[in-house]
């Protein structure tokens, strides 16, 4: 939910409207993909629901003052998901929609991998995977030191579970009792060389985070009701420990022929398919697009 600062207040949205936000996030991302003829679109479509719930239900921020001290911090550890976060930032009014055409181009504020220096609302420079949680926990420590009530969110992928630094940070954040830190793990079970559980099996994942001392929830990351409940529970928790929401998501979600396509880390989309994907999305809205 956002703050009620004059000119920036957006009312708390009912869940159906969150689905509408997710639809728009998917649509912005597809339009960016169309501009460059490429992009991590399958991941963006998969993460659209959790981003919608983050930006239109969980986070406090002022769209016209992205560096407002009281804001909740949202760290994108997975730099290549930038296309998804730009879409969310556009939908949130932090980035202008008319810059979609600049995506990935020279002098763009929306480069292919997310970097803090380029983009309003991009809190950290991700991309070297396994770093985001370490920075997010430092921000959580800093905010606590300042007696701030702001939250820190870190969005990471299941591939980042391979990195030792993820678990160093998990242990340290728990040791420091960082109860203002919420980690979101997007589990789409696909990384560069194949299915994540085949590359380096992270399952059973929930018990791992539990064992590291985190309050752990695992939900269908494309189920908005479930996501809302999980974010609410994470924030309402009074125990002095960090919280993780493991989100199982489907790559390509919302566009039937992309969701059905052979799963690949970098999904190939032909030039003529972008418009078709947008049409399918529009036809299905946020209803299950497989029926469209």
């Amino acid at each position, binding site marked *: 939910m956002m703050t009620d600062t004059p000119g920036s207040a957006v009312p708390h949205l009912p869940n159906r409207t969150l689905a509408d936000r997710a639809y728009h996030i998917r649509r912005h991302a597809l339009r960016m993909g169309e501009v460059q003829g490429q992009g991590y679109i399958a991941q963006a479509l998969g993460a659209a629901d959790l981003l919608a719930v983050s930006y239109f239900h969980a986070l406090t921020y002022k769209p016209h003052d992205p560096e407002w001290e009281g804001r909740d911090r949202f760290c994108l550890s997975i730099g290549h998901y930038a296309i998804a976060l730009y879409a969310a930032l556009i939908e949130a009014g932090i980035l202008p929609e008319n810059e979609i055409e600049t995506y990935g181009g020279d002098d763009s504020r929306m480069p292919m991998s997310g970097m803090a220096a380029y983009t309003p609302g991009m809190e950290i420079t991700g991309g070297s995977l396994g*770093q985001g949680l*370490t920075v*997010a*926990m430092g*921000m959580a420590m800093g905010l606590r030191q300042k007696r701030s009530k702001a939250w820190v969110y870190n969005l990471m992928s299941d591939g980042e579970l391979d990195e030792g630094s993820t678990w160093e940070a998990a242990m340290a954040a728990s040791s420091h009792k960082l109860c203002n830190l919420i980690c979101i793990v997007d589990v789409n079970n696909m990384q560069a060389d194949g299915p994540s559980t085949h590359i380096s099996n992270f399952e059973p994942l929930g018990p791992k985070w539990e064992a590291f001392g985190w309050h752990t929830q695992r939900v269908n990351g494309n189920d908005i009701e479930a996501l809302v409940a999980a974010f609410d529970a994470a924030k309402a928790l009074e125990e002095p420990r960090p919280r993780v929401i493991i989100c199982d998501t489907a790559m390509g979600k919302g566009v039937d022929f992309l969701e059905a396509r052979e799963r690949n880390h970098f999904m190939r989309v032909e030039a003529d398919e972008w418009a078709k994907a947008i049409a399918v999305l529009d036809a299905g809205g946020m209803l299950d697009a497989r029926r469209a």
Partner: protein
Amino acid sequence: MPLDKYTPRQVKLGPNGERLMTSAMIASIAGPDQRTAPAPFGHALTKLAASNPKIVGMTADLSKYTDLHVFAKAYPERFFQMGMAEQVLMGSAAGMAREGFTVFATTYAVFASRRAYDFICMCIAEEKLDVKIVCALPGLTTGYGPSHQATEDLAIFRGLPNMTIIDPCDALEIEQATAAIAAHQGPVYMRLLRGNVPLVLDEYGYTFELGKAKMLRDGPDALLISTGLMTMRALEAAKALEKDRVKVGVLHVPTIKPFDEATILREANRLGRPVITLENHSIVGGLGEAVAGVLMRSDTRPARFRQIALPDQFLDAGALPTLHDRYGISTSEVVRRVKAWVG
């Protein structure tokens, strides 16, 4: 290592029949008769923290071995123990800096430069965040072998954009440099001498200035350009050489980046002297090559150019005085080499 590991050994004694001890990590590099000051970094940081509430200290299980324990004791609520996890140390230092703190993050130079490099690069340097990475055991200051000897840290960090790099000589300089880097906005890597640290530069009326090289003494026979503890050795060598009527100048370059090219060129162009660089670091990528680059790019050709530096090797374990002799960075070895090059 000249003998293979299956060859039995006997006790080796020093020149006066004394037992040679491996220099422990907590040992001082000070000679037996040297004036020293205890934990200059820890005391300087504690003093600064009194007037600067933004200063926090973080470490990866090495507060006692980086003198940060002095600060931790004075300001426990501003001290953060991150565990033996250098990646988390650097990443969370970046996070703290993003929230407005001036972070002093300490570990050993090997762990910062080798293990945590990508975190220093992408989380800290790329964003010009206010993190001061202060690292003990630079170069050859422990006899524990390559796992603890940071012989290539300057080379690694010289390649990193936005990074300020300091290699201080003594306790006086560590104290002054700590204040200077706290006042400087942006990332810094500072090599640290810890424990009872030699006190040398007060004899020369020296004051540290970030980015400035300074002449400590002058002489027409050679220009010694040195950094870190090798400035101490250069000054000792200069005194010894003077007895043999060899008069050398000593230019101290504590800031490796940004590099004081103007002063280096001015002195290298004066008196037609041979130029000899001295560093407690590999011959690859440190002070010597930085000076050579400056001279070459400006078409400056000294009468002779030589480097005193550690060889491009993994160095032996053993007793530190033996190792400093073996690798040519002890005062007597400096004297011997300079004489050979100047004569």
